[in-house]
């Protein structure tokens, strides 16, 4: 017995313009639709960024919206030998609760826990966070620190790209309009390495990153740093490891002073890339402190 509802009303303070809606169940259907519509199509997964965009006054409405949320192969987290694979529809809540990620890359769980609210985390996906490519995307700095690769699929085949080379500028990636991001994979860091993610927002919940830092620190048995990775978020137009600061740490004994020195170097590099802006007076000391705290958090683990 169904309750049949025939009337269609469209209302809402912020309304969207009409588009074709498709809900493919397989990759083949989805890639066929994408090759048909090209740049006139937009993919929706969790919708937490896209629906806000579509309702902005003057928003550009795509001809078609392709809902990939019903493609079952796109969900789940798995280990493949030395790799961890996150399928693109993995939600922030899935990441937050994943035992696999707690064990191998706990900075991803920390980062996921700072995104939006439980409601947003239950819908928003790691794939969407990457493809939306906002400079404040919280999953991206940890994934770049983990040296992640993305896998993209189109009707023509599958290709991979290193995540650090995937972004062109804020809100623009190098994915072609006919490609779907299907998974993100990264090598498991050494068991002795520890990681952290620290974020500064204007409040504790439902908060956009003003600045963030993802860090991985591998200290050897001889108590010297073997490897360090530092990736700031919301600091550069696109993300990158700050090798100049990482190299300060390598071969040295971890200390608060050493971490502070690396923090100062990150601030210096940030300013050399972005120039001095109205916010620099604030961001310069703050990014240095966040880097120090992120490294201390690794060291405490």
């Amino acid at each position: 017995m169904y309750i049949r509802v025939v009337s269609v009303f469209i209302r809402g303070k912020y309304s969207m313009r009409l588009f074709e809606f498709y809900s493919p169940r397989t990759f083949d259907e989805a890639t066929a639709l994408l090759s048909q519509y090209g740049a006139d199509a937009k993919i929706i997964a969790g919708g937490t960024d896209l629906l806000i965009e579509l309702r902005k006054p003057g928003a550009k409405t795509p001809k078609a919206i392709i809902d990939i949320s019903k493609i079952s192969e796109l969900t789940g987290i798995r280990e493949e030998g030395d790799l961890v694979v996150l399928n693109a529809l993995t939600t922030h809540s899935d990441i937050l609760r994943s035992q696999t990620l707690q064990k191998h890359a706990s900075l991803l769980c920390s980062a996921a826990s700072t995104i939006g609210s439980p409601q947003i985390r239950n819908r928003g996906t790691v794939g969407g966070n990457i493809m939306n490519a906002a400079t404040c995307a919280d999953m991206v700095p940890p994934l770049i620190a983990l040296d992640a690769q993305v896998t993209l699929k189109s009707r023509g085949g599958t290709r991979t790209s290193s995540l650090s080379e995937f972004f062109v500028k804020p809100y623009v990636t190098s994915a072609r309009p006919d490609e779907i991001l299907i998974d993100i994979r990264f090598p498991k860091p050494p068991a002795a390495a520890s990681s952290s993610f620290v974020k500064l927002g204007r409040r504790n919940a439902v908060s956009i990153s003003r600045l963030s830092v993802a860090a991985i620190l591998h200290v050897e048995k001889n108590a010297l740093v073997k490897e360090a990775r530092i990736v700031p978020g919301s600091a550069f137009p696109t993300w990158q490891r700050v090798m100049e600061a990482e190299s300060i740490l390598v071969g040295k004994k971890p200390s608060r002073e050493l971490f502070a020195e690396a923090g100062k170097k990150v601030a210096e590099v940030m300013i050399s890339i972005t120039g001095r802006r109205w916010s620099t007076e604030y961001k310069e000391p703050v990014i240095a402190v966040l880097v120090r705290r992120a490294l201390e958090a690794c060291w405490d683990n």
Partner: protein
Amino acid sequence: MRESVGIIATINKKKYEIEVAPNTTLLDVLRDQLGLTGTKRGCEIGECGACTVLIDGQAVNSCLVLAAQIDGHEIVTIEGLADGNTLHPLQESFLDHDAVHCGFCTPGMLMSAKALVDGDIDPSEEEIRIAISGNLCRCSGYQQIVDAVKEIPKK
């Protein structure tokens, strides 16, 4: 261009077959097509949580879900919380603790709290605060709400 998409979804344990416009949200359909106005329209950008409903047991902002995306899913709204004339223990507890001031955030708060207590019958205060962190109450009655969730009448 197709002006409607046919979907089948379970809403408050009833099966619905609905023609929805592609450019409508779950919130629009609940309130304007189905008359389930207990779910509130607040900020419409996913910040206030007034429109919170459960999809397959998880709290979500219904303003950020396209109606067409709920095909095949199970939705619970505030109207699905009570069992006939018997209030849900959470609703009883909200009454007992005066956790309702103006009432606009209450349906969303209750749905976020339900998602929490369905998974964990004895959450800690911190877990409660995280669970309702996406729900704004501008009467600032958070303490009573936290107390209400903490002391659900055990039934």
